[in-house]
């Protein structure tokens, strides 16, 4: 339970205040996960630092070769943002599958990331969009491949007091398809998900990037399937082979939400549907 919550409005204020704080501490962004741990009595950290209103974290910027999306952006802000729609279509598309409308008004993309869940919808879209994460500790920045510091469910390799400042997505012209299987039509946690970013020219896949959710201890890419599909002209035979490859490169588990065999099958069905869509 937080004994103290400190609230800051800028990174400058945050970094200059950290030295004065000498308790075990944790960042509070949207709060949609942290408050549940609190209600369950699992939250023991004494000091919470509220970063939900830090202005630098809620920027979306069109930079030279990249789009920058601040970690503090609320999920609902992604859906109709023109920069996101143009350069990160997977992320815009993911929004309607993401929790409920009211949770989307509170939850942040950065929170979705640092929570390191294997079923994180926002991270699935970012991974397929080839995003990098920008980490910041007292204005020392590190830019790393998105999935490189995620070590398993709820495990992320951040330094003490380091924050995820935002995400950089390369500006590559492409389209995206986002599929998520859940127990009901909306507002469910993914049993399995597939997101593919692609550019097709005359039925040939010039560019293809695939990410998967809920089939491994973290969001994963499907590099063998990508390699196989790249520059191939999509026909029934290729689709069939790609589905075999993607099934062979994942090893999902049975858990309360679904079963390993079903998950494999769904991923293969999603890939088949997505590839059909790429050729219209």
């Amino acid at each position, binding site marked *: *339970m*937080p*004994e*103290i*919550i400190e*609230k800051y409005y800028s990174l400058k204020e945050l970094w200059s205040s950290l030295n004065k704080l000498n308790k075990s501490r944790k960042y*509070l962004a*949207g*709060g*949609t996960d942290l*408050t*549940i741990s*609190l*209600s369950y009595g699992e939250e023991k950290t004494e000091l*919470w630092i*509220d970063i*939900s*209103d830090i202005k630098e974290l809620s920027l979306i910027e069109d930079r030279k070769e990249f789009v920058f999306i601040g970690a503090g952006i609320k999920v*609902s802000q992604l859906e109709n943002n023109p920069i996101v729609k143009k350069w990160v279509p997977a992320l815009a598309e993911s929004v*309607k599958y993401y*929790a*409920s*409308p*009211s*949770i989307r*008004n*509170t939850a942040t993309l950065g929170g979705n990331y640092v929570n390191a869940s294997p079923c994180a919808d926002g991270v699935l879209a970012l991974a397929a969009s080839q995003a990098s994460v920008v980490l910041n500790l007292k204005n020392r920045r590190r830019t790393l491949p998105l999935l490189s510091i995620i070590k398993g469910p709820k495990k992320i390799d951040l330094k003490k007091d380091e924050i995820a400042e935002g995400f950089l997505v390369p500006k590559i012209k492409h389209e995206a398809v986002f599929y998520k299987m859940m127990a009901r039509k*909306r*507002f469910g946690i993914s049993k399995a998900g597939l997101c593919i970013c692609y550019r097709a020219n005359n039925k040939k896949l010039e560019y293809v990037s695939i990410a998967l959710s809920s089939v491994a201890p973290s969001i994963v890419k499907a590099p063998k399937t990508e390699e196989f599909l790249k520059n191939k002209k999509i026909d029934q035979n290729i689709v069939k082979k790609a589905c075999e490859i993607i099934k062979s490169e994942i090893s999902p588990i049975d858990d309360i939400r679904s079963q390993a065999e079903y998950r494999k099958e769904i991923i293969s069905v999603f890939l088949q549907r997505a590839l059909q869509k790429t050729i219209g």
Partner: protein
Amino acid sequence: MKKFPLSCEINGKKIKKEIDSSLRLIDFIREDMGLKGTKEGCGEGECGACMVLLDGKAVNSCLMMAVQIHGKKLVTIEGIHEHKYGKELQDSFVKEAAVQCGFCTPGFIIAAQEILAKNPKASLEEIKEGLAGNLCRCTGYENIFKAVDKARKK
């Protein structure tokens, strides 16, 4: 426990109050402010009974800390009638018998207000999508959809 000096606007009134840092928004609304219209159902964001408007957007008050509304405008079911579609929605829920036990109603009206304020011409499908985060355990969904649809036709 260190107190947090909260200042915000609730249902049009400016509030300044020293609050416990450990309070969730719903605890602050119900216990500190005595606004009992906002309900706690599941306490983990599934049911939507605790919804309030924060700067015009529907949020689950069980999934936020009270300090997160510092400097912002909060509207609960007690103040919704002063907002566009608020009074219309309340009347329409009564008229269309969209209220059975009534526990979910404040949350549904808050969510519906955001849907209509964002898009007064929302289709039935869009209304359903917008209400995806609200559960009615009496299962009176059809009348609720009808009530939201009719609220804008007055």
